[in-house]
């Protein structure tokens, strides 16, 4: 229990602390002054985010990895970076959920669950053993599924929660079976031991690995394990959708990559191909399914599926290609900004008008110029159009995808960008070009929402140009 321990466990400890603070606040304050509470919560979250950057473990002693609890918990500079990204995203999500929470009643519960989920994600990132891995994965998933139900009066909300929890339970169970097989063949659940005992070519291990792969792929909504995504996105309250799209996806992509690279490198030859097929069909299906989508949230869901496919291309460069993981983290940062900008607007509009169809957005520009530009910038970033950061992110991912000469993959991914542009442009078209008799009225944007959008847009416009961000991230992967 030395200083290092606290430094390393700091993100989790703070989160746990926050959860209890909220719990106490809930119990103590029966009046539920929502506004005050929200202010309080947001400040705490900002502090949490800031805290991530200070008093970090001292890596200068040549120590690149901190291990605690008999290898169950480990942390590295990269993981701390990832946690910081997630913390930051959490702040933005909290900002954009302000309006929605302000009217609802379960504010503190929302925060408790959200933070629990976040805690789970942090543990997941840091897990050094399959037990922690599985436990924290459940901790990350179950509260989010419950959160999906937080629009208690909206019939779609429990349905989304139901789909979410059932599918994820199923996927977890499959994954668990895979873990048992790995355990049975290696005799260990700690990653370090598992790695040592894995034998290339052992069918049972491979089968166990595939089960685990599928479980993770489900969380990442790779095709064909993606079908829950759109429904859950649509039914959940928009802030929860944002959390699902950003936090959950963000975590799992890191976990996916690190698991595959660090735990199962012996199967690289196999999972590389599996991954390639997954990426191809994920990108294609995700994009094609979005083409005819009229619901904006569902469209974003499919788009996020496709984006996951692009993100995974960063892994195709193989273990030796340092720019691959860099590109993943880099794009993830960009993706946080782009999606959250988009969700901020969607949340706002949905909150005020209850409209979330693309056709509802017709003529949106007539009354809401700034919001429209935010949407446009966010969508262009998602589509990978310069000068937005999405362009750079996607470019580097595509580059990484082709690093080992997988030109088919590259071609499929590139050509899919056309399809993706099509549906993004449909939204842009509805907003800017189409005329409507009854356009959405002028929407007043609250301070926090405006802040979110401003931060996101600034991020989208700046990150790409500044090569330093990329180099900074790259520094974590260059050894």
């Amino acid at each position, binding site marked *: 229990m030395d200083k290092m321990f606290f430094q390393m466990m700091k993100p989790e400890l703070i989160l746990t602390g926050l959860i209890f603070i909220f719990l106490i606040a809930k119990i103590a304050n029966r009046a539920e002054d929502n506004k005050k509470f929200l202010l309080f919560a947001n400040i705490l979250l900002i502090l949490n985010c800031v805290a991530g950057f200070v008093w970090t473990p001292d890596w200068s002693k040549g120590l690149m990895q901190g291990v605690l609890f008999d290898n169950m918990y480990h942390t590295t500079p990269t993981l701390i970076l990832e946690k910081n990204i997630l913390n930051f995203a959490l702040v933005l999500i909290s900002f954009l959920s302000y309006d929605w929470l302000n009217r609802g009643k379960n504010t503190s*519960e929302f925060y408790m669950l959200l933070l629990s989920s976040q805690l789970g994600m942090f543990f997941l990132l840091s897990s050094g053993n399959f*037990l922690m891995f599985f436990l*924290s994965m459940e901790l990350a998933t179950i509260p989010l599924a419950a959160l999906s139900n937080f629009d208690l009066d909206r019939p779609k909300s429990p349905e989304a929660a139901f789909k979410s929890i059932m599918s994820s339970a199923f996927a977890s169970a499959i994954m668990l079976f895979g873990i048992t097989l790995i355990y049975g063949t290696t005799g260990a659940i700690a990653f370090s031991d598992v790695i040592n005992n894995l034998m290339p070519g*052992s069918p049972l291990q491979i*089968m166990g690995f595939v089960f685990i792969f599928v479980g993770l792929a489900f969380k990442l909504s790779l095709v064909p394990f993606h079908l829950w995504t759109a429904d859950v996105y649509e039914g959940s309250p928009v802030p929860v959708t944002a959390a699902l799209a950003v936090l959950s996806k963000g975590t799992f992509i890191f976990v996916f990559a690190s698991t595959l690279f660090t735990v199962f490198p012996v199967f690289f030859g196999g999972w590389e191909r599996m991954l390639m097929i997954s990426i191809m069909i994920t990108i294609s299906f995700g994009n094609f399914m979005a083409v005819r989508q009229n619901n904006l949230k569902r469209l974003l869901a499919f788009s996020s599926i496709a984006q996951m496919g692009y993100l995974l291309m960063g892994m195709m460069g193989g273990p030796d290609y340092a720019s691959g993981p860099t590109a993943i983290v880099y794009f993830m940062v960009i993706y946080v900004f782009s999606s959250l900008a988009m969700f901020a607007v969607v949340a706002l509009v949905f909150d005020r008008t209850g409209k979330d169809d693309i056709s509802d957005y017709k003529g949106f520009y007539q009354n809401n110029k700034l919001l429209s530009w935010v949407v446009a910038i966010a969508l262009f970033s998602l589509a990978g159009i310069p000068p937005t950061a999405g362009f750079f992110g996607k470019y580097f991912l595509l580059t990484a995808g082709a690093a080992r000469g997988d030109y088919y993959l590259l071609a499929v991914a590139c050509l899919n960008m056309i399809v993706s542009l099509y549906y993004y442009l449909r939204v842009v078209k509805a907003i800017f070009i189409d005329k409507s008799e009854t356009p959405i009225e002028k929407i007043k944007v609250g301070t926090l929402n405006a802040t979110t959008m401003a931060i996101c847009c600034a991020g989208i416009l700046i990150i790409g140009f500044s090569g330093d961000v990329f180099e900074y991230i790259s520094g974590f992967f260059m050894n």
Partner: protein
Amino acid sequence: MSASTIIFYILAAITLGGAILAVTSPKIFRSAIYLLFSLIGIAGLYFWLNYEFIAAVQVVVYVGGIVVLIIFSIFLTAGAGGDMKDPIKVRSLFAGLACLAGYCLVYYVIQRSEFVAVNQPSIGSEVKTIGAQMLSTTEHGYLLPFEVVSMLLLAAMISAIVIAIKTRTTK
């Protein structure tokens, strides 16, 4: 064939039979009861393997907790007596075939795999050992998962309360 072997087969039969009936029985309440049998059978298997503590936990949590919860929820929702709707034919067929195929696949792989046991003395599964390790932070210590699970249970509790609490009706 020794007695323990016969007991194993009986337990296995209870487990599997209960499971099969649980997933096929048209009446939901019966389904839950079959599930109960199956879970008890599994607890029996644990006993059979001398994992008494796990078996006890299985009985307490599953049989005493989860199945009861399920039965409560059955009463809360559909009522216990009626027949459930028939499963969708095509999907059942497909699922059945897929499961069969999957089973064959896994079985095939398991059969072809060699399992290598370690040549180390058994640590035993007494409650004492389990308890000591559960709260230890050093080697073979499971304090961290224990805490994580506690957070999970807290979260689950909060979720369940918020979602299921009765006062929240429409409007």
